């Protein structure tokens, strides 16, 4: 009973401290009364998050899932050129875009929180690149449906995040 409460208190303190630092940096003020307002606003934000979160984390991403993010800037740059090229061919050459849906495999964790976290990380990571975005996740089949403007026939999530 005590450990979840301690964890909640630690999360509350971390969120409060981060919000307070952001407030002071964004407000760029040394005024004490404004800092006190920031204190209160940060406390409200931390309390709101604690209430929504409850005893369990809403998301708990694993570090291994974030590793492909290193290649993301290259993937985004490449895909930006790809979609602009498709637009150019459409406008100048009259070539219609032949977009495609694709099912890619994804290793679904058994844990509900981990699965939710993976879906969030995959959605943001994959959909940041203009040529591809995620449509949905099928947990039972371990697949993710994506839409690609210029099809590349991906088979796994790694294929999508390769530069």
């Amino acid at each position, binding site marked *: 009973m005590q450990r979840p409460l301690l964890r909640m208190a630690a999360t509350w303190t971390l969120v409060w401290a981060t919000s307070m630092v952001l407030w002071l*940096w*964004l*407000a*760029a003020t040394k005024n004490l009364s404004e800092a006190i307002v920031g204190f209160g606003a940060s406390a409200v934000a931390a309390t709101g998050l604690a209430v929504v979160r409850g005893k369990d984390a809403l998301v708990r991403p694993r570090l291994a899932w974030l590793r492909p993010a290193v290649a993301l800037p290259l993937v*985004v740059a490449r895909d*930006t050129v790809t*979609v*602009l090229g498709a*637009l150019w061919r*459409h*406008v100048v050459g009259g070539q*219609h*875009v*032949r*977009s*495609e*849906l*694709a*099912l890619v495999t994804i290793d679904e964790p058994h844990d509900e929180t981990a699965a939710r976290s993976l879906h*969030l990380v995959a*959605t*943001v990571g*994959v*959909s*940041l*690149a*203009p*040529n591809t*975005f*995620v*449509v*949905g996740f*099928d947990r039972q089949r371990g697949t993710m*449906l994506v*839409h690609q*403007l210029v*099809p590349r026939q991906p088979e796994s999530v790694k294929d999508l995040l390769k530069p």
Partner: protein
Amino acid sequence: MTAQSVVVDVLLAAGVALAVAGSVGVLLMASPLDRLHYVTPVSVVSAVVVAAAVVVKESFDARGLKAILVAVTLLFLGPVLTQATARAARVEQHGDWRLEAGEKRRGRR
């Protein structure tokens, strides 16, 4: 004309050009799913480039930080909204977002 102002002007021109190109793409594409692909260059690349222009001019003071905050907000919320819209568009079109048995994957939807 300093090097800083040249860099800022180049970044601004690139950001705005991408915003215009993305808008043209949204207006010209045939289906909602195809149009969605052209929102991303604006919300991701254009936002980052414009934020970079602000940071080059203002450095990491309150203004630079706020511009970064705007770019980060668009970076994280944009893909989530895109996924929600794509899924809803599929549900409206087909009754379910999943591929139907025998549904062609290639095409405008």
